């Protein structure tokens, strides 16, 4: 019985494949063919990072790699979070236009802030926990333009380098959490394939000794 692994496409993909290589899984075919999504010979399925928890929760994949940001947004997914893989480091934060203090201004005069985000649940939770009323506007892409165009007072988003923020004259005001890639597992597979999953975790710890478990 071998494992089916859900691997995210996008920003985490390169380092996820490097990790599989280090474990002795040949990822040459995945790297060479970006139209193909399913690789039954090596037990790999590729997909967008935010779909990884769905595949793993339903058991279509036994384990998967996805970001902490995705898990925090989909916090009701019933999956095991087994390992902090250390790579894909970035920050979930609140950013606003560089001029003035639009959040405070909006709160004082209108009693609420308006926040555009791809992460509506994380944003709602953050503003609730900090005691501010917020209207959350969900967008699917290019959230950086929201403050500039008047859609929102600020944004909640993930940043790695901050370059996109700077290009849109946004500044980071509040940090919500640090995100890295995580190894997750289906709860049924976690029992029925206990040996394979434990073996995988041990081998990952072996190739990434310092990065694991520091969140």
């Amino acid at each position, binding site marked *: 019985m071998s494992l089916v692994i859900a691997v995210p496409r996008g920003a985490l993909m390169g380092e996820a494949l490097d990790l599989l290589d280090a474990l002795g899984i040949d990822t040459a075919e995945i790297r060479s063919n970006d139209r193909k999504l399913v690789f039954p010979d090596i037990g790999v399925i590729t997909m967008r990072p935010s779909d990884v928890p769905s595949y793993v*929760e339903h058991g279509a994949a036994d384990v998967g790699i996805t970001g902490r940001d995705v898990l925090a947004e989909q916090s*009701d997914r019933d999956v095991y979070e087994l*390992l902090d893989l250390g790579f894909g480091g970035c920050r979930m934060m609140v950013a606003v236009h560089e001029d003035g203090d639009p959040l405070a201004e909006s709160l004082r005069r209108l009693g609420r802030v308006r926040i555009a985000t791809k992460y509506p649940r994380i944003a709602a939770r953050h503003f609730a926990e900090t005691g501010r009323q917020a209207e959350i506007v969900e967008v699917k892409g290019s959230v950086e333009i929201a403050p500039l165009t008047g859609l929102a007072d600020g944004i909640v988003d993930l940043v790695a380098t901050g370059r996109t923020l700077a290009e849109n004259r946004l500044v980071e005001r509040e940090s919500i959490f640090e995100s890295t890639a995580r190894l997750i597992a*289906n*709860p*049924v*597979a976690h*029992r029925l394939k206990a040996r394979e999953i*434990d073996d995988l975790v041990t081998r990952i710890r072996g190739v990434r000794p310092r990065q694991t478990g520091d*969140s």
Partner: protein
Amino acid sequence: MSFPIPPGTRDVLPDEMRELRAVLESLRESFEQAGYGEVRTPTVEYEDVLRRGDENAAGAGWRLFDDHGRLLVLRSDMTIPIARLVATRFTDHEGPLRLCYGGQAYRSVTRGSGQLTEFLQAGAELIGVPGVEGDAEIVALVLKALSAAGLRRHSVGVGDGALYRRLLGAFEVTGEQADDLVGCLMRRDMVGLEARVRSAGLPPALVEIPSLRGGPEVLDRAEEAMGEVGATAVLELRGLYEVLSRLRHAERVILDLGLVHELGYYTGAVFEVYDPAVGFALGGGGRYDQLIGRFGQPRPACGIALDVQRVHIAQAAEEKMA
């Protein structure tokens, strides 16, 4: 034009209904043959009555008012209603009581998760048989019932719901800190658990032990890691495993030292049922020695419930493989 039904509910048409009925009937027959008499309780109960059994009415998702303004809930499981039934209808009954049921239960689920709000449950409750003897009877019963229903690869995870708190107690981890660590385990957040244990300078065994699952070697490992404390903590599980081995069920039992149950009324052994064809547990249960007492008739008890639709999925997968 579209005439929707509420999210998480469904219509069942004749082909599926025939199969579903056959699965339900097969489970009921297995339970009846083992001496479990079928009962039925109302789909709706008074909220305050269910609350006696569990503070949040066992997580009931749907609430409504009756014509006198009293708060009703659609039952979220059958165990509390049966505890109420036992305490009120069997007051003079001496000795063990074996009951089974099949019916709809309701829970709140996230939209888009592919899970049902209204689901068909079948299960059995054994009242008045304490300790491993009762636990083993229930586990053996469900294993046999699933085999009879056509499953071949199913297994039961067996844990002790009080084990992790006992371990924490041995290290004088109590109060909020203990709740926090148990919370990590319930959310299956092993990364958070490891980080908290490490930053508090607690022994790594508090991460390792709840990660152990498998055969009897996991009990040995717990003893090795924690000595006397570990040995005492797994004593009951070892006893249960020995009884199940004698009943020749050992190969279908997964000892799971990290198994915790979100329902507050479990007091000892907890169970979860798995089949490789289904990504979710087929069902679960455990020992609830205090629950019937909350309705005025203290009696030890344990039970297990199966999601009939998931059992049907597993059974259909077996047929396809054959």
